[in-house]
């Protein structure tokens, strides 16, 4: 793991196209600005993990046939 110290307004380059900028530090929170090409998706880690889990569970848990809702039959 690369560990570097940055101050507000300073940036980190990841490859040629991804720029991470420290915008602001308030207390124990850091605001980051991320610039990346469209092909690189940027997520908050905990949301990415939760969605990944949910996608996998949706694919794994699904029964062979889905129960038909009573209301939808009419």
């Amino acid at each position: 793991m690369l560990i570097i110290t940055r101050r507000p307004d300073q940036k980190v380059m990841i490859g040629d196209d991804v720029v991470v900028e420290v915008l602001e530090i308030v207390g124990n929170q850091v605001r980051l600005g991320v610039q990346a090409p469209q092909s690189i998706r940027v997520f908050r880690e905990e949301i990415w993990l939760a969605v990944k889990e949910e996608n996998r569970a949706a694919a794994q848990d699904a029964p062979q046939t889905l129960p038909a809702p009573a209301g939808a039959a009419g």
Partner: protein
Amino acid sequence: MLVSKAQDPKELLPPMATQSQFPSTRFETLEVTESAIIDFPAGLIGLPGRRWALVPAGGESPFRWLHSLEDADLALPVAAPWTFFPDFAVELSDADSELVGSDDPDAVEVLVTVRATTELSGFSANLRAPIVIFEGRGHQLINEAPDAPVRASLQLERLADRAA
């Protein structure tokens, strides 16, 4: 590598076919029309493959299957969110809106993935990461709206209301 790609049987399907067959462990035969095929350039979060198809779940079901065309085992139930969540709203970041290619709500199709069980009462939907489809291309995006849980129980009374 091009050589190994050409040996993939899926690559040998005629490109102009209006209906194509794909392997599926869920369905005996999975026949998909061209218009039902959706390309996900960035895939679905945490799942392999970028080519998927929307397949009806049968009858009057409000659900459909989002079936991988690259992995016969992989299919997720999906639904139109407003069927179950009348107040559902999607807020996309500027970057994500640009990615979709349209900001016209009537032009895009929005779906949510559904976690299904044997009982309908146990179903939930992921309102945090809806799937937005425009002109055959799909993206699973993060919904920035404040009240969008990853696991929201389906509001089944909505269905009953509609039927009444």
